[in-house]
């Protein structure tokens, strides 16, 4: 039976107080602010305070628990900001004059960057990143490979991307998700095949993260300026 080293015990109090104070600052900022977009961004700060409080425990378990917390924050930001955009667009749809108000627009402005390097280098860099990501496997690998796809997608500046491609990327993501879940279930149901399950999970995770990061990239490239 191991016990927690003295270093973590003495660090716990400063760490958790830092978390509580960061959380206090963030929540008070939300309570004072009026703009919805600011509140949405400030909620990320609340998530940061959560990471403080969880990681203060300082065991391997705490390190593992940070990941779900982070992912939940990220996922909710994604969905809720999309709902915010939908709401604003529905408002404009119902009352076109609402768009003429002077208040700041929620949508990014169309802007084209004309740079030589944006057309030649990305292919190569994206390929290297995706290759390296596959070599790494697992979560990091997925993030690296996804970064490559984002770079590729962002640098190509054609607009009005066919929905088919988006559906395809989303489909790969869904299949990878299933692969991953099957890997986990194998862990529980048949522990003796843990090596197979480990590889299923690692490769599924690679595909999942990569395709999702790539999907964000594809969505980001689409300007949503519906002036």
């Amino acid at each position: 039976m191991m016990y927690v080293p003295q270093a973590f015990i003495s660090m716990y109090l400063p760490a958790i107080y830092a978390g509580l104070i960061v959380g206090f600052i963030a929540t008070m900022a939300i309570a004072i602010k009026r703009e919805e977009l600011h509140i949405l961004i400030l909620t990320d700060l609340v998530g940061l305070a959560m990471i403080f409080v969880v990681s203060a425990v300082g065991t391997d378990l705490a390190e593992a628990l940070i990941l779900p917390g982070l992912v939940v924050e990220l996922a909710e930001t994604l969905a809720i900001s999309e709902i915010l955009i939908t709401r604003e667009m529905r408002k404009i749809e119902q009352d076109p004059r609402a768009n003429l108000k002077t208040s700041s627009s929620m949508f990014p402005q169309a802007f084209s960057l004309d740079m030589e390097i944006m057309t030649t280098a990305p292919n190569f860099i994206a390929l290297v990143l995706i290759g390296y990501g596959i070599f790494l496997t697992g979560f990091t690998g997925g993030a690296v490979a996804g970064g490559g796809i984002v770079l590729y997608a962002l640098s190509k500046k054609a607009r009005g991307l066919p929905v088919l491609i988006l559906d395809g990327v989303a489909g790969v993501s869904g299949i990878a998700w299933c692969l991953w879940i099957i890997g986990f279930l194998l862990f529980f149901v048949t522990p003796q095949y843990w090596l197979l399950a480990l590889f299923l999970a690692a490769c599924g995770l690679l595909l999942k993260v990569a395709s999702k990061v790539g999907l964000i990239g594809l969505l980001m490239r689409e300007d949503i300026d519906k002036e």
Partner: protein
Amino acid sequence: MRIGVLWNKLADPKNVPRLFAFSLGVLLIIGLLVPIALNPDQIYVRPAPQEQVDEGLALAPYDRGGEPLKEAGVIDPQYPENAASLGMITGYMSPIAQWISSISPYFGTSIYSSPGGLIDEILYYTRGFDTILESSILMMSFIIASWLSINYTMNRKNDEKEIKKDFKKAINDSTQVANEVKANDAKARSKQLRRDN
């Protein structure tokens, strides 16, 4: 203030998050008054910071012992009886990972980069159900966000005119920026010329 007025204010969805944030903030400050200390009797204990680095272990700070496919590493979970091959994943390294760890003392900081390793052991094996939920949350918000964007916010099938207009606007904008850059360039050059003379 009458209580009815207060309830009416609460009925506006816009005020609710701010009220929630306020009460949460007050509670967090009250937390500073509560006696807080870490219980030294924890599960999944890790060695002190820098201890493994000072020992010169290649897998530091994630070395928990064990030999790939032969010997299990040391892991201290809640219910050891529910995990038959406990510690095997911590000990496992793919051949590539083994090779890299033999030539580099910094492999530990990228140990997630191969299937296996400590975090995989906890995330996949002993607490795998958490990870299923976590990935389901991610999947569901992707479904929500991508459904909305494909079917509504990004759906531009019906407004080709707008696409053309936006295109024109983008081209105009970029030429404008380019012109400005050119003008600034010329100005700077003439300044430099004057200074040189």
